[in-house]
């Protein structure tokens, strides 16, 4: 009888749920989750990046029975997790430079393969390279594109908090328009970060035709865990971008709002959540309860100039139009399918090889 009733109070919206079958609960709900990034790290109160990293690496650990090595770019995650002489990591972890993380990942993957062959090991450890948006979309872009080009067996995770947080909130190519950063102050004709600049790295990754690309946020844990597990089921280059709100850099009204901010980014259409295989979008996370963009903006001081008395309603309208365009392009509402996008020719070859 109990199995027949597929209605479970909070359903799959919460981390766990005592009413559902244990196998359907998230990895984070289990008493013995790996806690790959454990207590004592020095991230700010309510840091979304710390949360996103534990979510993602724990899921990868589960998917590979613990056979994971991590390369970390310079950035908050690296700094707060490993201030000498302490480390908050519970797995093999290496830091080299700010911009070469993907390259170090490629090297590690090659070395792991050779070593397993030499030793006659039946399992080859898998490699995750990770960094912030600055380290990924700007300075690390060359190495990342090379890793995609060679289709190296690395999962690259970008923890996107939309600016260079560790050095005091400077604009990156992932900073959205109109957002205040230390280098894009809310002054002049178009206050905050410029319009018409920036790049969409998940789409750039897809254009390389690599096996798997996904976006996720810390506000949909099941979706995030599923995507990491799925990424680990592929060999070759993979890319996941996780939206991780930064209470400090975004000026969240309270450090408690990290997950809520990520949820609003999804529910407004500001941050489209989807996955793609070999350059083609295969699924889209639908908006559950659509919200106007103002609800997202008004809990962040980096947008204070858009919601105050002197705010320019045109800017707000432009941001809303941006969300609406996302909703349309990615089919974030209802049963609509996302618009087809052309994939790189390499995708065709690579998809045949597997």
């Amino acid at each position, binding site marked *: 009888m109990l199995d027949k009733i597929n209605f479970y109070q909070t359903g799959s919206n919460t981390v766990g749920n005592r009413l559902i079958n244990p196998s359907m609960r998230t990895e984070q709900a289990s008493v013995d989750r790996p806690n790959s990034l*454990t207590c004592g790290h020095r991230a700010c109160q309510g840091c979304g990046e710390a949360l996103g990293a534990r979510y993602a690496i724990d899921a990868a650990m589960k998917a590979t029975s613990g056979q994971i090595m991590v390369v970390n770019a310079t950035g908050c995650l690296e700094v707060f997790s*490993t201030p000498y002489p302490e480390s908050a990591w519970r797995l093999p972890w290496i830091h080299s430079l700010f911009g070469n993380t993907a390259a170090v990942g490629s090297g590690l993957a090659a070395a792991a393969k050779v070593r397993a062959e030499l030793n006659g090991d039946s399992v080859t450890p898998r490699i995750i390279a990770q960094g912030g948006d600055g380290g990924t979309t700007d300075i690390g872009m060359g190495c990342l594109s090379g890793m995609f080009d060679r289709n190296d067996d690395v999962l690259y995770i970008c923890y996107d908090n939309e600016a260079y947080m560790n050095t005091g909130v400077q604009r990156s190519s992932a900073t959205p328009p109109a957002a205040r950063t230390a280098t894009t102050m809310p002054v002049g004709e178009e206050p905050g970060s410029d319009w018409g600049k920036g790049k969409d790295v998940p789409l750039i990754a897809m254009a390389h035709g690599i096996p798997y690309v996904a976006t996720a946020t810390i506000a949909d844990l099941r979706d995030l865990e599923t995507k990491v597990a799925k990424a680990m089921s592929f060999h070759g280059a993979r890319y996941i971008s996780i939206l991780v709100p930064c209470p400090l850099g975004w000026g969240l009204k309270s450090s408690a709002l990290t997950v809520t901010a990520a949820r609003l980014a999804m529910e407004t259409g500001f941050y489209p959540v989807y996955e793609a295989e070999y350059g083609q979008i295969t699924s889209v996370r639908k908006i559950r309860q659509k919200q106007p963009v103002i609800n997202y903006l008004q809990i962040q001081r980096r947008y204070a100039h858009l919601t105050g008395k002197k705010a320019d309603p045109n800017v707000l309208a432009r941001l809303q139009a941006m969300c609406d365009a996302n909703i349309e392009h990615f089919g974030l509402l209802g049963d609509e399918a996302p618009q087809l996008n052309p994939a790189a020719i390499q995708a065709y070859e690579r998809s045949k090889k597997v």
Partner: protein
Amino acid sequence: MMNKAFAVTLDPATSLENHTGSWRTLRPENVFKLPPCNKQCPAGENIQQWLYYAAEGNYEMAWRFLTENNPFPACMGRVCYHTCEGKCNRGFLDEAVGINSVERFLGDYAIEHKLSFKRPAKDTGKKVLIIGAGPGGLSAAYHLRRFGHSVHVLEAGAEPGGMMRYGIPVYRLPRNILDAEIARITDMGVTIECNHKVEDIEAEKKKGGYDAVIITTGAGISSNVDIPEGDTNHILNALNVLGEIETKGNIEIARRVAVYGGGNTAVDVARSLRRLGAEPIIVYRRNRDKMPANEEEMDAAIAEGIQVKWLSTITGATKESLKIEKMKLDESGYPQPTGEYEELPADAVVLAIGQNVDKSILDKLQGLKVERDAIVIDPETNETSVPGVFAAGDVASAKDRTVTLAIGMGKNTARSIHAYLRGVKYKKQPKNEDARFEDMHPWYYTDAPKTVRPELELARRTNTFDEVQYGLTEENAIYEARRCLSCGNCMECDNCYGVCPDNAIRKLGAGKGYEFNYDYCKGCGVCAQECPCGHIHMVPEKI
């Protein structure tokens, strides 16, 4: 450092040395709040708690927690006016949880599976006399027996149940259900003596050597109004009509009957008479808005074809008709006469304009204070002005007279007597703070409409005394229980445990909840923000 392999500088998890709890200015704490349903329940049920077990399919556990407060779930699942549902926080989201239907499901489950109450482990040797085997008296008897006291109940009627038997029609409460739930109480060792009308309370107490007495004699006398009566028009009272239908199964009454009054009893009489083939018409001096009768019951009456004459008083009666004066409501909602009259054809009138307590036995008890048709009791202890004599139910409540309230008063009286028998003064437990919808996180709950209890077809309902509302199926009961938001109390969704960026919440395992690890908790507040049911508070740290 020396022992490390090439290029290795840091050992894993050495960050545990760094107790980030010292950063904290706010500390998360679990708060157990009072859900609005529990707060509203006149019987003091812990509804959220028993729904929690029902949602898991653990019906026996749910029933055990339910009956901690109320021994009559099968009856209450039928006759309670479930004001709890009107307060349910889920109402803000879609529709209130069908609490009453789940209660009934659990009550029926317990009867079907022959669940019984545990006998007390030890007898205290104290004796309590209860006068009146209605809901208040039986509830008190049950709770006193659980404490281990020996309880004897004296009942004037032929069978126990009080208004549940002689006031509530069979189509709302089948008697086998009532009998089963009473039997469970007598199985615990409570003795009930029927056909024993108490004349002298003091003498009865002395004779039996009782340590305490509870008066739960109800309000069983129908109020009267003066209607100038011509010829032979019958004027009857509601309780006699309902009592006679209960004992004889029928009543000799005219076809066109006016039922005078706007309360639940008026509706019960009208619906009962309809089933016996009469054409009742309710005559009420105010309008529907001002009518005290339960809305669902009134809707059912109208659906069954019962007519209502609003804003009307009966000023006289002749053989075949009534003289009706039209009323209008003044600014404060009171009906005022208009001087306009009309005739209403009717062969009989049933008065259902209120019930009074039987003062004859109360007057004989020296020192007993009775005011405005109710025994005066201490609201904390339910003790009357006579030491050692307590009262509960309709006889001690002039304003609010429902079965549910009587059950709640019976429970409180039992607790108070339990204290009294040990020589201490009873104090009600302080209530937890309210679980408000504003403090919850509705996004997390999945959408689900309320299942509506299938009702018997109207045509069948009006000419039989078969039960009108069928119970929920097991499927629907679980579904309904799972709609509960678990307001202000943990439902083990693991959200706090999951969303902590500092891994500073320990999960203790199924049924054991969670623990904050204050060594590492930085006080960011994400757990409190993301708790769906508002079970976590952020409290300023003393720095």
